[in-house]
């Protein structure tokens, strides 16, 4: 079963490369086996697969996505895919009073894993990057040793626009920027804006 999951992972990475190229440009830092939180713009369901495929093979297993529990555990296949292949961290979309929604993420970070998060919260349809949600700030505060890497995913909205299911082959790239650190005593809003600017700065200039 583990063999099958590994094979599915390789197959998905291959398909992602075939369809989009999944070029990783390590502009601000090299790919490295250290604990990181990658944060990126969010335009499509494919965003996670793209970042994952752009990572070198040996870093993939320790880098985990965040998945909404209600949607991604609904059918057995979805559950298997997110649990066995991607090792997803499940979060509840409904806020309950007794549990901090960031708790599963914090658990994963405590276990030494790296995370990929999309701080905009939802996929943007306009192409504009929306203001970041505060989760990134709280994680940065709790885990100062984890390296925060901004990433820009380019072109992916053309591959699979919202509402379509079959992707069109178009080359995409993932640009990883220089790591960012939370300054001591930095204001939440200021930090989130700085993080958003760091992601935006990686956007290639339109020709």
């Amino acid at each position: 079963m583990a063999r099958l999951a590994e094979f599915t992972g390789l197959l998905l990475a291959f398909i992602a490369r075939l369809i989009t190229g999944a070029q990783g440009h390590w502009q601000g830092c090299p790919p490295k086996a250290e604990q990181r939180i990658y944060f990126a713009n969010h335009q499509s369901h494919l965003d996670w697969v793209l970042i994952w495929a752009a990572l070198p093979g040996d870093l993939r297993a320790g880098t985990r996505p965040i998945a909404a529990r209600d949607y991604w555990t609904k059918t057995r296949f979805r559950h298997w895919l997110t649990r066995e292949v991607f090792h997803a961290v499940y979060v509840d979309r409904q806020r309950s009073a007794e549990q901090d929604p960031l708790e599963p993420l914090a658990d994963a970070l405590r276990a030494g894993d790296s995370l990929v998060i999309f701080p905009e919260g939802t996929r943007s349809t306009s192409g504009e990057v929306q203001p970041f949600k505060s989760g990134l700030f709280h994680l940065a505060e709790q885990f100062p040793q984890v390296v925060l890497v901004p990433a820009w995913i380019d072109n992916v909205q053309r591959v699979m626009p919202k509402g379509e299911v079959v992707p069109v082959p178009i080359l995409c790239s993932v640009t990883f920027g220089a790591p960012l650190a939370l300054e001591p005593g930095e204001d939440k809003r200021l930090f989130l804006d700085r993080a958003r600017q760091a992601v935006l700065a990686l956007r290639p200039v339109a020709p």
Partner: protein
Amino acid sequence: MNTLRTLEATQQVALLFVGLFGVLTLISAAAALASLRERSGEPSLAEHARRSRFKRELSALWVGALVFWLAWAWGPLGSTLLFGVLSFLALREFITLTHTRRGDHRSLLLAFFVVLPLQYVLAGSRAFDLFTVFIPVYVFIALPVVSALAGDPGRFLERNAKIQWGIMVCVYGLSHAAALLLLDLRGAQGRGAFLVFFLVMVVAVAQLAQQVASRWLRARPVVRAISRSFSYRAWMVALAAGALTGGLLYWITPFAPRQAIALGLVAALSGTLGELVMRALKRDAGVTSSGAAEAVTGAVGLLDRIAPLAFAAPVFFHTVRWYLVATP
């Protein structure tokens, strides 16, 4: 030469590849030796750029030769598959460079996942009549219909033209190289590989001659806004070089020397003009050099390399097929 003629067609083709890889090995070995010797001095920046470009071109040649050999060695199935993958990658690059809209999604799916495979199935099964008209007739009428059904009238004509051109160059054009490999001409069965080799050599020599000539002649470019290296004099040199190469290679083809010269001219003509058109397309997409595109999209410049071939292959294929079948 007479012993060569008595060999079987497959043996002759095998010899062709031995020669091809031999020459490539020699070039690579010479380059490696030269780089060893020059290691002592510190190379200038321009020299360094020139060397890395040479290295890139050489490895592209190797890849091209390997693809060509695999395509021949695997027979009809392998060659259509290989050229199909090349087409796919080229079309992917083409579509990345053009600005498509949300309403194009279904047309693009049709192009990538229906038209491209079908065209290669037709090539692989040697159904050359349908192969010839499938895209220009059926696909070019079906695509705008799918596009219209998407319900986005904005820039309708422009968007459709872009997709159709992408298919024309990357699928229709390139599939003719695969078809050429499978073409059984009267009196030259199983020797399609020679035709492809002839075509590639002529186009490559013409292209090279044009570049060298435009540097030496320093003639005025005809269309400065599109290409700085395209001048009429350099172009004439390229055509002459193509025709000459065609003539020199006549013995590997089923043609008489005069026919080979004429066909060399045809291939050089369509190849060099095809390159010019590809430059115009790239300028339109806002890409001035393939290096800049690489940074943005991760495009590998495959389109640049296959464009002359994609333009020359259909012209060459139909000239050969029509001419050699029509004359008794």
